[in-house]
């Protein structure tokens, strides 16, 4: 399987926040960590989400190598190894890295890894009313983006 990405067409984000709640439900999260988040700057909506960077600053910042990138290009956290130092939270340029106060570990988007293995779309993208969250094969997405531009 090739690399997988999620990208958000910002201009089509209507600020409904459905993705946030779908994400919380999928990952069984309470108040606190927001693995995807939409900032409202009237009249604009700015989605904040993990870009699963090719050279992830969060991974570089982690002193215990708890963050890794898998075969599909997804940047993931090994919760067992995480020491809760929050270096990654500071390092992320997007503000996408979160902290789970209950588990006392860093928390981040895993692009719904479990769902992906079952061939299902990430929870956030599935309910989006404008379809502004696009996911799939990275190369294909890049090609599509290029043709849009």
């Amino acid at each position, binding site marked *: 399987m090739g690399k997988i990405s999620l990208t958000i067409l910002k201009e089509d984000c209507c600020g409904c926040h459905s993705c946030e709640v779908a994400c919380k*439900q999928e990952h069984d999260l309470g108040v606190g960590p*927001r693995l995807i988040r939409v900032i409202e700057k009237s009249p604009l909506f700015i989605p904040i989400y993990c870009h699963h960077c090719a050279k992830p600053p969060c991974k570089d910042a982690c002193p215990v190598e708890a963050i890794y990138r898998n075969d599909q290009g997804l940047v993931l956290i090994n919760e067992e190894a995480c020491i809760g130092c929050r270096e990654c939270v500071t390092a992320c340029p997007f503000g996408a890295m979160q902290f789970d106060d209950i588990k006392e570990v860093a928390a981040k988007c895993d692009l719904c890894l479990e769902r992906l293995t079952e061939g299902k779309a990430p929870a956030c993208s599935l309910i989006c009313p404008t379809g502004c969250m696009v996911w799939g094969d990275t190369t294909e997405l890049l090609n599509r983006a290029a043709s849009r531009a």
Partner: protein
Amino acid sequence: MEEIKKVRTVCRSCHGGCGVIAQVKNGKVVKIEGDPDSPISYGTLCSKGLAITQIAYHPDRILHPMKKGHQGWERITWDEALDTVAYQFKKVIEQHGPESLFIGQGTGRDYESHFSRFGNLLGTPNVLTAGHMCYLSRIGASLITCGRFPVCDYEGEPKCIILWAVNPLWTNPDEYKGAGFWRAYKKGAKLIVIDPRKNFYTQKADLWLQLRPGTDAALAMGFFQVIIEEELYDKEFVTRYIHGWDAFVERVKEYPLYKVEQITRIGEELIREAARMYACTKPAGIHWGVPTEQTINCTDFTRTAIGLMAATGNLDAPGGNVFHVPPKVRKVSEFSRHDALSPTQREKRLGGEQYKLAARMALITPKAAWEAMLTEKPYPLKAGIFVGTNPLITEANAKDIYAALQKLDFLAVADFFLTPTAELADIFLPAGTWLEQNHMAENWKFHGYVLARQKVVEIGECWQDHKIFQELGKRMGQEWWDTVEDALDYLLEPTGLTWEQFKEKGYLKGDMIYYKYRQGGFSTPTRKVELFSTILEDWGRDPLPKYTEIPESPVSRPDLAKEYPFILNAGLRTPTFFHSANRQVPWLREIRPDPIVEIHPDTARKHGIKEMDWVWIESPRGRVKQKVKLNDGIDPVVVVAEHGWWFPEIKDEGHGWDISNINLLTDDSHQSMDPVMGATNLRVLLCNISRCEQG
């Protein structure tokens, strides 16, 4: 460990009928997903629907009936609760007559049929809802104008869409769902957006008309000015199917574009361009929102908008505004037994003589109820039941409502939580959420569908509202069915399906036929679209639509505007809350923790106000505080504030109902209301703002 069971059902976290797949494990709902096969939502779902598990299983939710004793709320049985309500209601009937009882609902959990049946069989005409200023008001105006309710036909692929004061991807007024709009827009429809605020849609729009809040009816007249002047109307339709066209044309002459510009503050040329685009792009649909209904122009705006649809040949045309054909189920009106309410009792409807359109829709303007409670005139209202409504927060002039409800001898409330309104009750009945409901959903809507909302779980001792009316009705000696499902069989009978069979099917759709008026005309007295309303004429009202200046505006009250220089545009919607609901839901409150008031940066600077400051918003009727968000996409003279705020986390019995509740500022004087529907003005008034030092 038990397997996960999937149940297909239908959401009701707003008015919506979005399709849901609920996952159940060990008797508990563990996940909510959108149903991709839903003809309403195509798999999408909003934050409110997704968060239903946090309402259903909320620690503050009341799961058993209660009575208010000397020590506060005490748990009781359903038998005791229902016997108490029945005893109190019978006492009022004996001493004062059934008209001294009221039944009240909010936007409803889809129990209108049962609610009205209960009221009609009770013998009271005093049905207190939000319908005077929300949805039923537009239906009332539609019925007298064209006989049915015209809905933007997204399935018919409009080539031009007007979004008129509406945000369909956040909040869904009934028939429409954001998904339908978005599909049509993405197929390339032209978009005209009418809104006082720059927003998501205004940035997508071909044309954005930023009107002064409350002047929609004048703008509609401006559209007509252009359409008539440039002869952009469908002459054959106008000749054959519009009653009173010539008189209406005369009326439109009172609105030359320069005058419409003065009223609406939209440039003449822009109005002209928009009118042309709407009239010349075929087909074109108008999707309009509730702000147009919540002013003195409620009925007149809807009537003029229907006039636009009719005159441009878009009425009941594919991709225009259409009359959907319902499936052949039993109608809400028949189930509701309106025939059982005697003419003598109808005549006693509070405010019925004055607000005849509301009376025709079998409801009252709440103002008339508050007056009867406070003054006992024309007769006292002594007791009643509120189901799923929090009028202390959601109706105009909250201070009066608080005083009025204190005067009642007895109040029962059915709800999920102890809301500020529920705290004023004597009996609390625990209602079921949509996860706990068996119902043939959406029967009262005009989109041509009925949907199977099936019970996913039972929680505590909660009952779905339908069962509450049924069991209370039986105790009042009314005719009901043994079970909720028996009543559903009765509703479904004309289709030949039972509830069990319907549940398997999921939904029914009526067979759509366009241009139905070509056989037999429209269902009005003249069989035509009545731009000149013979019904309003009979009532001694102006038979032609017009624009009336908002009674509290810088134009109508320059004196008051000196002290209150800003136009308060109240009722700003959020994507996470449904009116006064959901403030206790962690996932949603995290997204929207505070009541927000939007202020233009220039205005804020002038008043020493910064983003995230708390500010006082003050009207002649009171002051409340909200938190500032700057928005340079509004007129600096306009201040836009959210509604519906109370604070469930405040544990005293007021739950902070008077801190940020914008309806402490709104007016419900008769002169501010729609003259035939009694719509209260929840939207446009004068205010002042100042920085709140304490925060």
